[in-house]
């Protein structure tokens, strides 16, 4: 395949696939496409050829806002030492077995 001329022209899309009824859509990967319809069809051909899905979402990558790795300290570390935020301090009655 040639060097990617399309990366300059066609936007990047993120693909989310639901594998079965009742499951969430999961991020499957990304691809290039000229428009949403083409993105859906490309996703169908690239990511569901082996029966991996029953529903596809695509979203243009530029519409996804991500947290910055540089800020991960103040973003995530403070939650590290707050075990009391887990619901693990209750005493459960004997009869409740499956919680």
């Amino acid at each position, binding site marked *: 395949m040639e060097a*990617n001329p399309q990366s300059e022209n066609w936007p990047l899309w993120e693909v989310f696939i639901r594998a079965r009824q009742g499951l969430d859509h999961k991020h499957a990967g990304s691809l290039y496409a000229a428009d949403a319809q083409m993105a859906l069809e490309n996703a169908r051909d690239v990511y569901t050829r082996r029966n991996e899905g029953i529903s596809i979402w695509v979203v243009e990558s530029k519409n996804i806002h991500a947290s910055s790795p540089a800020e991960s300290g103040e973003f995530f570390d403070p939650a590290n030492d707050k075990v009391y935020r887990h619901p693990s301090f209750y005493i459960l009655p004997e009869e409740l077995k499956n919680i």
Partner: protein
Amino acid sequence: MDLLTNYILHQADNALILGHRNSEWTGHGPILEQDIAISNIALDLIGQARNFYQFAAYRLNELSPSEKITEDDLAYLRDEHEFKNFVLVEQPNGDWANTILRQFYFSSYQLLLFRELSNSPYPELAAICEKSIKEIRYHVKWSSEWVIRLGDGTEESHGRMLNAMQNLNPWIAELFQPVDFDYEADETEAGILPEILKDEWYQRVNRILETATLPTISSEKKSMQLLSGKKGVHSEYLEPLLAEMQVLQRTYPGSQW
């Protein structure tokens, strides 16, 4: 060979030859995603071809039980004049526009034909067609969108579509010309005469061409057609395709993966 078997082989050959043509794109597609898309369609078509070849082989073996013909014999050991595919589907890939238009013309035809054949009193034939229709609907949708995208795209893409139309339009007429096995299929009600698909085919195709800002095509136009793929009279392009496709089986008969 009985005529009805030829009718089935005609369906098989169309699918195999176009599938093989599309597979020539594998690794050469304009972008990765479309490379996979066209290869997928190639696989769909080769799958359809297998079903038809198996059915044809079954019929041939029923007729003369001493022979043991397989789908591979039919695909890999017949000569050019025995192939009954349309001249349209053996045309070279050319550029992407040419490949897309060839797919669009053929899939539109296949969709209408298989819709009829899925009511055939021959259960095997009906089942194969019904199974294939889902795939074909996608092929029509996919190729229609590309025709529109290129036709109504840039000056260059529009020009390439016009060029593709010039290459391929001469081969449309054959889609609707009946030969002996069509008459047989019609008489036994196994199949239909292709003429009855003509009006709807032109309507559907022209609707897309219009949306694509391309010139529409007319069924009235007389074409000087000396070739007839259905009768085994092919263009210069089938022979080299077969040479490449069949070389392995012919060099090492009976070899398997």
